[in-house]
């Protein structure tokens, strides 16, 4: 998954998990059902507009509030390939790596990106290229352990390998 190229949907600061997936939809944990309401209270039309491979670009403290993993699950199931933000709330940050959703902190890239831009992310190098402006941005580095999680496809897959689970 080293290179991710996609169209940008832009959001502001402090997008909390209630806006990403409101509690009225938490009576299920089915990813497809959750995807139908992804980002609904931030942009009611988002679930209709978003396409496979799109990228969310947001301000500071993205994913604040509730620990509900339904939030990154709904984003991933809606087809979003990655999230770039100025900063992430900590539980959302963990949850995203744990389910194998690439996310990057890159404040300058957020400032230099507009909705509809096509950007190219190299998760290995931690670089973000805005194809409209040609400018390359550097994301804050991901700790090596977190990279291992992404490579494994998430925390459970990582643990399964490490502890040889599921093997008789």
């Amino acid at each position, binding site marked *: 998954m080293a290179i991710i190229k996609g169209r940008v949907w832009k959001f502001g600061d402090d997008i909390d998990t209630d*806006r990403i997936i409101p509690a009225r939809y938490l009576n299920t944990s089915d990813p497809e059902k959750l995807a139908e309401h992804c980002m609904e209270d931030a942009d009611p039309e988002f679930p209709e507009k978003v396409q496979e491979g799109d990228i969310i670009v947001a301000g500071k403290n993205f994913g604040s509030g509730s620990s509900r993993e339904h939030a990154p699950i709904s984003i991933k199931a809606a087809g979003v390939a990655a999230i770039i933000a100025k900063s992430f709330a900590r539980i959302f940050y963990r949850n995203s790596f744990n389910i194998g959703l690439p996310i990057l902190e890159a404040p300058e890239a957020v400032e230099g990106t507009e909705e509809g831009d096509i950007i190219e992310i190299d998760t290995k190098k931690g670089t973000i290229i805005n194809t409209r402006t040609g400018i390359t941005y550097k994301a804050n580095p991901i*700790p090596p352990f977190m990279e291992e999680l992404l490579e494994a496809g998430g925390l459970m897959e990582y643990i399964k390998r490490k502890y040889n*689970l599921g093997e008789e």
Partner: protein
Amino acid sequence: MGMTITEKILADHSGGKTVEPGGLITVKVDVALGNDVTAPIAIRKFREVGAKNVWDVNKVVLVPDHFTPNKDILSATQAKILRDFAIEQNIVNYFEQGEVGIEHVLLPEQGIVLPGDLIVGADSHTCTYGALGAFSTGVGSTDLAATWTTGEIWLRVPETIKFVYHGTRNKWVSGKDLILYTIGRIGVDGALYKAMELRGPVIEQLPMSDRFTMTNMAVEAGAKSGIIPPDDITLDFIKSRAKRSYKLYYSDSDAKYSEVIDINVSEIQPQVALPHLPENTKNVSEVSNIELDQVFIGSCTNGRIEDLRTAAKILKGKKRKKYLRLIVIPATPTIYRQALKEGIIEILAEAGAVIGPPTCGPCLGGHMGVLAKGEKALATTNRNFVGRMGHPESEVYLASPAVAAASAITGRITHPDEVYQGEE
């Protein structure tokens, strides 16, 4: 170099002597909590990797509190997944209706969480237990599943911000007002990824109920955890509840903090957080013209017996404003029964309140008090995000139980002094 209380607890649980802020460590977990919203995903993940048994049936805690009593068929299905798993795995601390209360009030009440513990919970307000001098943090469902499988979790060691509260509390200034004021000062990401260590002479005088309210909202400042050093008040709270050993930790005098913030509480008046962020705080007297459709007293933040006593004191012999809905939810069955014994339920009911069964319910717009478009609620809860209690165009104002009770009488945001002249 000295260590903070948080670093000491993390070091002990990592098997090492020291830890460095910023370092990634793996720690042994004492309690791993899930609820009816977060545990079903954890259960699915647990099964997907082929795990058979949880690592310790005494350390896994399952609390169906969010959408219970089941609000619809889908919620009932989620609750059933939880119950079936608890039966299959012989989980000791599973709580059925009639025993179940809001997790973050229930666990301390039942002595399940104790000083020095390392607790993770798939609920962001798991940070509440830091009031006992424990390290406690919210995680997601996958983290919970991994912990059930291995008994361990990876954590980044947080830097600590020390908050020193001094001065004299003004009348009606509770733990809720102190934490709202603090969040207003540092912002909703003011403690992002960090531990908030709450200290000082004012904290040392605070009852446990107010301490829990404060650490409960540490996550509202973005913090990983909130923590209060244990003292005689802590020990008095746990002495009749603890059924196992525990350990008291204290920060060294030369411990390193990323920041020290001094708060003179003499300057603080009762607070209210305006929509749509907990950092939008004002003095109650500045916003007393805002009219309300609903007042809710309850939640893991302020659904304790002390909160109900405060509300009853102000509402005794009075009536709620006509057309305003007053909803009161005792956080646990024990609190409910105690409120019955003390005549609190009767006072509140006579004031026109509807009393709900223990549940998170309306706090997260689940059920039992959801808001329509354009409605305004004042709630003793912890979040006032867009759509938090219902329609995306409804509004939530956060305040203490005293302000909530006073506001229920007048139908607008009200300072308790306006309707109640007695002692606090």
